């Protein structure tokens, strides 16, 4: 029944068969989901954050449930870029050769971001990069880069210098003026921006007087943050000309449509993968049905179609 809807979108030269990506850190490297869903239905897989050396992450507990949301302080635990290439990327290349892979890149310093990309440039099976300048869970680097225009621009410029592949910069919502930061990274040659990463939050156990996360603070995700995310996508989409990838609390097709209307060219699904591991394909189906029911022929026509 959805044959009539053109679900393809284009993100900085990368053409995707569906306007839906996985949100970094919530989908592993896709392997764990391959038993549960057909990965070919996704627009692209965005991998967990990859750093130059292995990172240990933060002490446990690393998550806490909150009203309509969750806090996490994973801290970008990962086995490093070398292990990523040998294990995760190799698996994706052999088992999901049709699915574009966007690697989420982390670093403590500008040089580390660049070093990760330099290593990944050797791998032919990569469709693009998402540079994470917005992780609230690491001390050096992480969110710090994403909270000022100058440092966001600096990371973007350096990464741009290392690759001609589509370069997406992932923005932090923990700022006064996200549109300003988006404009700064656009000026340095980013092909797209993705937003939002998690809102910095905290929860305290009133029984023990201790923070629920061992690290104290962590990142808030899930439906609780959706109104903030939609607002920021709307602000950024009006400020830049490059595509915006919207995320934050998407649980249903209607949520995804809301982000598209606000100005997103594609959306990403994060926390919902934990609640329902089939969320991504369910949402893609629902988006197609939504368009079909309203006679919308191209899903891309929804982008920025809010009447305001």
């Amino acid at each position, binding site marked *: 029944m959805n044959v009539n809807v053109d679900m393809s979108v284009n993100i900085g030269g990368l053409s995707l068969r569906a306007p839906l990506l996985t949100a970094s850190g919530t989908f592993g490297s896709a392997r*764990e989901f391959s038993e549960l869903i057909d990965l070919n239905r996704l627009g692209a897989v965005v991998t967990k954050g990859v750093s130059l050396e292995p990172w240990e992450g933060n*002490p446990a507990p690393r*998550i806490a449930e909150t009203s309509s949301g969750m806090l996490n302080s994973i801290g970008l635990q990962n086995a490093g870029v070398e292990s990523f290439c040998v294990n995760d990327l190799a698996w994706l290349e052999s088992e999901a050769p049709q699915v574009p892979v966007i690697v989420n890149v982390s670093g403590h310093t500008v040089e580390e971001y660049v070093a990760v990309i330099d290593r990944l440039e050797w791998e032919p099976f990569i469709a693009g990069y998402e540079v994470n300048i917005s992780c609230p869970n690491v001390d050096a680097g992480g969110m710090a880069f994403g909270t000022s225009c100058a440092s966001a621009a600096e990371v973007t410029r350096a990464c741009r210098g290392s690759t001609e592949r589509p370069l997406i910069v992932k923005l932090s919502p923990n700022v006064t003026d996200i549109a300003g930061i988006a404009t700064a990274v656009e000026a340095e040659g980013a092909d797209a921006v993705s937003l939002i990463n998690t809102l910095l939050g905290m929860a305290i156990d009133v029984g023990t007087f201790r923070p629920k996360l061992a690290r104290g603070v962590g990142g808030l995700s*899930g439906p609780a943050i959706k109104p903030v995310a939609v607002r920021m996508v709307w602000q950024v989409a009006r400020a830049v000309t490059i595509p915006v990838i919207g995320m934050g609390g998407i*649980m249903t097709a209607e949520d995804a449509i809301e982000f598209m209307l606000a100005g997103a060219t594609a959306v990403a699904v994060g926390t919902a993968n*934990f609640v329902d591991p089939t969320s991504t394909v369910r949402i893609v189906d629902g988006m197609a049905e939504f368009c079909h029911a309203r006679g919308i022929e191209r899903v891309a026509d929804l982008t920025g179609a809010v009447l305001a």
Partner: protein
Amino acid sequence: MTTCGCAHHTPPRVLENVTVVANDRVAQGVGLVTFDSPRIARDIQPGQFVHLRIAQGVDYLLRRPFSIYRAHAGRLEILYQVVGRGTRDLALATPGTEMDMVGPLGCGWRIADSTTHALLVSGGLGAAPLGMLAEELAERGIAVTVAMGAPCGERLVGRDLFERVARRVEIATDDGSCGTAGFVTGVCGEMVAEGGYDAVYTCGPEPMQRIVAAQAAEAEVACQVSLERLMACGIGVCLSCVVETKCGLRRACVDGPVFYAKEVVWDSAHDVTCER
């Protein structure tokens, strides 16, 4: 070589719609819920778990992990303690209620071919993942002895099952209202020291498991423990459930929840279950 990972061949995971067929209180604050869930019930191995969606709205989002107490004839039995919102809602579910679960998940108990006599040590709701194990061991002709403890007789769970399949069941209650007065670790310590076991399996509050592990190590018997961690995904992607092991951080949801005790770095093990 120690890998601290899962050596098992684990059955494929599915997302299954399940229906409550019975749900009753079986001890103070503890319920036993039975689900019709043909696919998972067929495949699940002792010590594995399921990730159950109890919440319907998005007030609380996450699934809740539960061990399987028994699996037979297309049905799963879960023993649960009411501790918070999710388990409170679970306790209210009436027969006919539909939910969904992801499973079978994780790596369950290893049963070595050489095992002849296993000691199962259960503290409080520790019986939950040991029920299926006890039945499986008995079926394979392996002798089973159980040491079980609880704060009081009112809160002992699993006794019927254990008495049906085990050759011996020793009970300890903190208040002496049933069996020996004191912690199960006291009873268990003596039993392990007596000898005769070639495998120890334990589940319960983490400090208890740690003591049992030490007792087993002393007696040079291989010991497996089942650890609880806060879990978001349950399938290995979110890294919320890490356990520190001799080979680094491992995910309780896929590399565990069952680990060889000797692989666990207990010092940093985070205890979320002191209550039980």
